[in-house]
């Protein structure tokens, strides 16, 4: 029977030809660098796409919340005008609703624009814009504010009398 690790195997183990520490080292570094780059690129893409999805999802939720509260403020403002008395001593109609929203979505700052028809939320990086229509019947003074808590206000007196206004909280 032939021994597989016989005299030939012993020769292979002892053979140091074509073996270079430098070549091995460079090869290891190169393969490691390629692997590392692949991982970084792959994971970076996943993170980026997940960030976009999260931003869109968050903006959608925040937009719906803001639009619902614009409609709430509108209903309250119109209710404050129903059978309103202007007798001496009667208070003016004043409505204010604070909407608590986060300053950032998925770590990204955003801005909120409100006008007569819709609430628009926008981020720059990633570039995302989301428009949520609202059904407020009162005029809404167009305004753009930084993302975060906002205040919706209405008054029967003052410069913006009869309009819904939006300011940063």
């Amino acid at each position, binding site marked *: 029977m032939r021994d597989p690790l016989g005299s030939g195997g012993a020769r292979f183990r002892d053979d140091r030809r074509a073996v270079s520490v430098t070549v091995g080292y460079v090869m290891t570094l190169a393969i490691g660098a390629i692997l590392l780059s692949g991982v970084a690129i792959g994971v970076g893409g996943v993170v980026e796409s997940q960030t976009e999805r*999260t931003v869109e*999802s968050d903006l959608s*939720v925040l937009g*719906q919340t803001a639009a619902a509260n614009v409609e709430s403020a509108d209903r309250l403002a119109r209710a404050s005008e129903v059978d309103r008395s202007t*007798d001496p001593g009667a208070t003016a*109609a004043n409505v*204010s609703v604070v909407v608590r929203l986060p300053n950032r979505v*998925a770590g990204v700052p955003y801005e909120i624009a409100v006008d007569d028809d819709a609430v628009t939320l926008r981020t720059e990086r990633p570039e995302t814009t989301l428009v949520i229509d609202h059904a407020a019947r009162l005029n809404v003074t167009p305004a753009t504010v930084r993302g975060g808590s906002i205040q919706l206000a209405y008054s029967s007196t003052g410069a913006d009398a009869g309009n819904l206004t939006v300011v940063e909280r």
Partner: protein
Amino acid sequence: MADVSVDLPDREGLFGDGARGSDRGQLLLVAGLVMAVSLVVLVVLLNSTIYSENVATRGIESADGEAMEVRSTAVGGTGELLDSTNRAGPSGHGDAEATVRAGVADLDEALARSYAERGGVARVELVGTENGSRIAAALAAADPNASTLAGDVDRTRGFVFAADPTGLTDTDAANADTDAFHVDLNASAGGSRQVYVYNAPDGNVTVAVGEDGGEPTVRCSVPPDDRVVVDFTAERLGDRPCPGIWSPSLVAPGDAYDVDLINASEAAGEVTVTARPRSGETVATDLTAAREPATYEATINLWYRTADLRFETAVRVAPGEPDA
């Protein structure tokens, strides 16, 4: 057997010249760091998404619900207060106003207590009242042909005729102007509206409306019952809506008008009305015995505040007025 044991590296191997080979571990370190940071970012994003989805599925809490409820409670409570004060038959307008003022103070206290438990601050304050008269009489007390129920008034509310169907005349729309009991709303600026109540040939209690004495048009009818209530200002017959009874021009007119009862002998039942005179505090009527001082309307200031909401308004309360 093959030798798979590995000797532990000595100090020289780790830190000496022979340690150069361990530099390769830095790559693994950097790769691990990148992976760790990426995973942390992914976890944060996932957390954010889960939170957003959670918020989205919770539904959006409407901010206006409680404020509307406070307004409704305050207006409804004040309206009930006005009606109960007037029904009790106050000795004079001063007495009526004092009762309303005390009632609004009680309402304020009750509202404040109720909403404090929910984290809100509610306040109601009476600004003032407008005086008028309440007239409640059996139709038999009126002149059988024509009488003024409320003359020279500019607002009317709670104008109700509780009819006994057995006492209503049997007729049809074509003959209603001569045969049927009707209410004549006569505007001083010109124009009039007649509201007829009679038993139609089909046996139903019927309400028909005419303009300036012209042939009336049937608006609605209901089967007879023990009592059929015709609410002229709320525009209802029995338990059904009956739109078109009250003239839109008399909802908030700039001029005075008269409310007259014509052919009172052709019906049986009781009539009740609260009205505000164009001038003065007492409504002119032919049914003086049935007239009592009343508070026609009240104005209240209303405030409601929570951490996120402020609602302030002044409301004119006059329950049972016709809608515009």
